């Protein structure tokens, strides 16, 4: 019985890396489409609350104006989404976006992140905290 329980747990966990890719990717696409359309309010609604507040403080202006001032890229295509538990990353050719799953769905925690080498953390123009 213990063997069966553990096997079930392993098989269940094996799916953790793949679940909900579509939702995270959809949120990322929605965010970039809003930025490209000049709709700062919609783009800000796609950001996590902390990212929204950090951006407004950093730029000294409300989030809808501040997010459009970041000169974020307009990536094409759906991107490659990778989900691990409550976190996700969507990679485009020259841009990476990070998302976290909140009770009301996926929200962007960092965007405007150019590629980096190896293990280095990305430096993003929009970030939480």
């Amino acid at each position: 019985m213990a063997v069966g329980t553990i096997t079930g747990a392993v098989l269940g966990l094996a799916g953790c890396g793949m679940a909900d890719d579509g939702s995270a990717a959809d949120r990322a696409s929605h965010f970039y489409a809003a930025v490209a359309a000049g709709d700062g309010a919609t783009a800000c609604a796609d950001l996590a609350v902390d990212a929204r507040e950090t951006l407004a403080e950093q730029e000294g202006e409300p989030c809808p104006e501040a997010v459009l001032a970041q000169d974020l890229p307009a990536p094409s295509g759906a991107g490659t989404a990778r989900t691990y538990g409550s976190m996700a990353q969507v990679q485009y050719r020259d841009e990476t976006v990070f998302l976290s799953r909140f009770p009301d769905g996926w929200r962007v925690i960092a965007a405007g992140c150019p590629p980096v080498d190896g293990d280095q953390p990305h430096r993003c123009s929009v970030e939480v905290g």
Partner: protein
Amino acid sequence: MRRLKEHSLGLFFGVLFVAALIGQAFAGWHAFNAQQAADGLGTLSLGRYLTSSDFAVDVSENWQSEYLQFLFYIAATVWLLQRGSPESKELDNAGLESDEAQKVGPYADERSPRWAAVGGIRTTILSWSLTLTMGTIFLLSWLAQSIAGQVARNEERLASLQDPIGWTDYVLSADFWSRTLQNWQSEFLAVGSMAVLAIYLRQRGSPESKPVGEAHSATGVEG
């Protein structure tokens, strides 16, 4: 009532296990959400936490080390001895022992398990079944730890805005071996110290101890 008494050891540890697992679930859930909130990230419901990789890796890393401990102890005590310890066999008895001593094949009696009497592969399987089962649970728990650990580690990496790593890189990583070895060292210390301390120390009435008045030099005698 008599039935309850005769199974009280298994029941006692079963109840302790469930209570401790429930406690771990609540404490782990609060600790996880506190860290997520401090980092400005999403928090999880209890239900989601219980199916999360964070909970799974914390559970499985302890399971694998406990089963490894008993796997080693069961197998090592076949051949290795400890003079004066009730955990050791008598000093002239190392090894798999004779069929007669083990009551297998023609030496099985009417109360022996059928597989002990039939010979062949079935008797071999029964002869090693405890080690095989402990070893299988150990390997599956360790595999579960590696899979859940990779997901949990990648959650942390994404929160730090680092790219995720694959399973192979994870099982070669410091995080995987730190989680593994910190559990192994404590298990090996506990089991080794028990084998040695039981040479000189006693617990009256416990089958894990020698009888109180037994000589320190007596080996393989249980109370």
